């Protein structure tokens, strides 16, 4: 039998783990400021300064990237794909805390997820939910239909380009569309991985990265 004390111990471990996860993911979260549009979010894709965000966040001109440690860089746009609304930026910085990327091919409906971003300008805001549905969306480009992740984690303007992470803190998707305020859509991380790989700018293409171990 599990006693009340065990249950309470479990729930406090759960709370600690959640806080640790959010701190970890926040370190890989950046603000992307386009010149004409408002700010969105992005993630540090690799430690040498590759930043992944939404294409619509970047806009037409050179964007700025604000890191978690408040350093700000003018970024170079190295690749973009409007069809899946992704853009890859390069900033002149080294030894950055890269996000860990999960394999989104093994997602299950009901998995716990967290969305991080800057809704309404609130930096590093986190919301929780689950994978609500694994469905498809029609694109305007040559792909036709692409797989998407729907989540019930609340999203708002400013979440665009930010990560949707699983219970291990690894990125499973890039938050992209916000439908009616209570239904978010994320582009699966493996589409993002393919996009980065095809850009030719990634030093190494890691198909599946093991999620970082939690250390408390």
């Amino acid at each position, binding site marked *: 039998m599990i006693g009340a004390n065990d249950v309470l111990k479990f729930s406090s*471990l759960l709370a600690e783990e959640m806080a640790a996860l959010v701190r970890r993911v926040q370190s890989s979260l950046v603000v992307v400021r386009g010149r004409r549009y408002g700010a969105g979010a992005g993630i540090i894709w690799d430690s040498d300064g590759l930043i992944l965000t939404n294409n619509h966040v970047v806009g037409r001109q050179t964007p700025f990237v604000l890191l978690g440690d408040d350093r700000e860089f003018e970024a170079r746009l190295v690749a973009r794909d409007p069809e899946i609304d992704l853009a890859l930026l390069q900033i002149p910085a080294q030894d950055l805390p890269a996000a860990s990327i999960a394999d989104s091919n093994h997602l299950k409906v*009901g998995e716990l997820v967290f969305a991080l971003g800057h809704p309404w300008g609130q930096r590093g805001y986190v919301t929780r939910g*689950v994978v*609500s549905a694994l469905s498809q969306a029609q694109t305007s480009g040559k792909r036709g239909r692409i797989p998407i992740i729907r989540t019930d984690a609340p999203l708002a303007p400013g979440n665009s380009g930010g990560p949707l992470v699983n219970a291990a803190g690894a990125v499973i998707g890039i938050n992209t569309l916000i439908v009616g305020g209570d239904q978010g859509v994320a582009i699966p991380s493996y589409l993002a991985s393919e996009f980065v790989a095809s850009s030719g700018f990634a030093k190494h293409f890691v198909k599946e990265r093991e999620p970082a171990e939690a250390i408390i």
Partner: protein
Amino acid sequence: MSDTQVNPLTELSEAMAEAVAKAGAATVLVDARRRMPASGIGYASDLILTADHVIERDEDIKIVLPDGSEVRAQVAGRDPGTDLALLRLERAATAVAQSAAQEARVGQLVLALGRPTPEGIQASLGMVSAIGGPVRTGRGGLIERYLRTDTIPYPGFSGGPLVDTAGYVVGVNTSGLARGASLTIPVALAWQVADTLAQHGHVRRGYLGLRSQPVEISEAGQRALGRQQATGLLVVGVENKSPAVEGGLIVGDILVGVAGQPVADHDELLSRLTGDIVGKPTPVQVLRGGQPQTLTVTVGER
């Protein structure tokens, strides 16, 4: 955290995905209206429990199972009062949902499930925000208890289950009872209604044929009754040839009990007048001139 300890967060996540898979196997698509399909729950291998308001036609009702196969179904019974309907499949084809043994508690983590498209199961996480009731619904219905949750009621989730983190059903979700707001009918009531619908095709609601209003019972009246009961229902009118008249009820009586149970207000009277009591001679206790009397009334059917 050492290597030997499990990560409680990934454990919880895994458990919820498992719960969705388990309950999702008994959650089906119900196609019986013009706009998008809704959801239903396997109540028996050939019976689907769903929301009454999503059944807009009696014929050509189509059920899509989790594996994508289609089965025809017919209406086995409907109860607009609780917004529940039971459909009978043309063959035994569905997995059966398991109900939770314990009643839902405020603060409990829950998942709302639905299958409005053949693409796959859908889910939303939340918790039981409040337990309310009794609430009167249209057409004489009364729901003794309902659940409110902060899960997102996605389009087509009506008729689908609310489940706990182990995949056991704690209720049936519907947006058809409270002007579009989502309510959850607790599984105990939903299963009871489903059982009645399977047997009789409808839920029997009793009829007495009297008009009444709640009044306080004096201390002397309560002493005469031999119990503490602050209120009863003052009979202010009876309909001709109604069960009330046939049973001897008259204007001025204070109705205080039905079938051995105290009745303090209209909601209690409505809830006592459902089910097996209908059509049967039933003891009705009144205060007449300050003295308790028990009359026998054969409860009619509404």
